[in-house]
């Protein structure tokens, strides 16, 4: 069917939609809403996936932990020199970190010790924390926290400091030196950074021990050999590669996409029900209209063209409105209600600042699941009616 754009036919289609007033508006509203729901869920899911894959590149190539009787134990710093001697290892960094359970709020804070002597620490902190005074941070026991931690501490009347309870039952008072930039909220929300010696004191760790050791390796082809060497040197070690993390993320997405699919199917079934309702036949009024058009000399293809215009007006407008609304909902309003599906029941909910990424593939999926299906639902019954004789249709 050759379609040449015809403004008169467009005006006729607009008039026809206007004549059916409420019905047209309701169809437009329903189609927009279902497309909006599909688009919002897919945008959030895609943004989270993108965020994780973006951050995974910044992770260390290898993380070495110590196991004893199948349990994770602290690793001795004596291993550092041996690890650095392995050919291909660029840096070996001991890390001190863990979880601090805050009874009052029932949440786990992630506490990370930082090496204040590392030349990059100051630079990194100044990038991520506004108006940060590094000298003051080093001079007194201080911490830098995520937005969520700051909120929880404020709710519990800790405005400028927090009293950690050490393993020996003493208080370790730590001042609040700064809060991480809200843009890092999805990563930093529950985190507390403070000098390693304070973390060791709180967790009761030996000065010659660390939680784990991370290795930075320049050439990724050497990773397998380095793993073999570390395993031979320290048989009780557990080695986690960046690649293993990537694989595990993939399995998480496979599982999560199952949940999305379930939600998505609900939308799709609702949508198909509307389509079925339309496809099961035109209303008597619409049939009468087709009959009159045939009686005054319109051919089948003219009627189909007109119906095509009608369907396109509704489908394309609804699609555009839905995408605009979904982007506004997810990025400006931070997806109220829907974000709860992703963040669960956590007390320490992060602000939902998702990365903005336009994925053509995702937009195509939304488009093909809404526009062509609706257009087919309008055109097929019209074609069925238009092929009948005019008097038969009007009778």
């Amino acid at each position, binding site marked *: 069917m050759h379609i040449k754009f015809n403004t008169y036919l467009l005006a006729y289609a607009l008039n026809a939609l206007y004549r059916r007033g409420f019905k047209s508006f309701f169809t437009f509203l329903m189609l927009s809403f279902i497309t909006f729901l599909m688009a919002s869920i897919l945008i959030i899911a895609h943004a989270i996936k993108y965020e994780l894959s973006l951050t995974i590149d910044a992770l260390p190539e290898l993380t070495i932990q110590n196991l004893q009787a199948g349990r994770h134990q602290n690793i001795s710093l004596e291993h550092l020199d041996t690890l650095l001697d392995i050919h291909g290892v660029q840096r070996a960094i001991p890390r001190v970190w863990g979880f601090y359970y805050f009874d009052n709020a029932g949440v786990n804070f992630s506490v990370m010790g930082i090496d204040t002597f590392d030349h990059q620490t100051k630079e990194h902190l100044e990038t991520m924390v506004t108006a940060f005074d590094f000298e003051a941070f080093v001079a007194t026991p201080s911490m830098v926290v995520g937005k969520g931690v700051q909120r929880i501490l404020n709710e519990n009347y800790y405005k400028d400091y927090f009293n950690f309870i050490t393993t020996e039952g003493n208080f370790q008072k730590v001042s609040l030196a700064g809060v991480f930039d809200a843009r*890092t909220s999805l990563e930093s929300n529950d985190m507390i950074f403070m000098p390693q010696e304070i973390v060791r004191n709180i967790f009761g760790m030996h000065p010659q021990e660390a939680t784990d050791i991370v290795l930075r390796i320049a050439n990724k082809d050497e990773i397998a050999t380095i793993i073999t060497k570390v395993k031979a040197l320290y048989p009780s070690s557990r080695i986690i590669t960046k690649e293993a993390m990537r694989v595990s993320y993939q399995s998480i997405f496979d599982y999560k996409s199952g949940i999305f699919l379930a939600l998505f199917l609900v939308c799709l079934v609702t949508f198909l029900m509307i389509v079925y309702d339309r496809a099961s036949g035109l209303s008597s009024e619409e049939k009468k209209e087709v009959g009159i058009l045939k009686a005054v000399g319109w051919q089948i293809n003219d009627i189909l063209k007109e119906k095509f215009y009608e369907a396109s007006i509704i489908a*394309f407008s609804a699609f555009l409105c839905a995408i*605009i609304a979904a982007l506004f909902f997810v990025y400006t309003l931070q997806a109220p209600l829907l974000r709860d599906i992703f963040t669960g029941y956590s007390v320490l909910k992060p602000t939902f600042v998702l990365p903005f990424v336009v994925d053509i593939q995702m937009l195509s999926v939304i488009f093909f699941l809404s526009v062509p299906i609706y257009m087919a639902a309008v055109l097929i019954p019209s074609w069925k009616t238009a092929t009948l004789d005019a008097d038969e249709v009007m009778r």
Partner: protein
Amino acid sequence: MKTQSITFIALFLGLILTLSLQMFTLNQQFADHQSIKRTFVLFSGLPDLSIANEALFVRFRSYADTFSLFSNGPELLEYAPSTFTYHPAYTPNPSRIERAH
């Protein structure tokens, strides 16, 4: 008669323009987010997003839990061996799966 068509086309183009402007603004607004997030992960060296922090669900399970990557997490039900950390690929000996091939 044509006025309606022109009004509709104008409205439709308005929608396209709104969408383009919205995408452009969001792109500008979020342009510097990626670098600061990367800096943060580079600094902390820890994975995962800060989404679940309840008593039962600690973060960084891949590092914090010995036996499985996401044990008892709200995101994933365990099923061996794909979500388990221990697998035989680190050693030069082939795994049972590799041997089968």
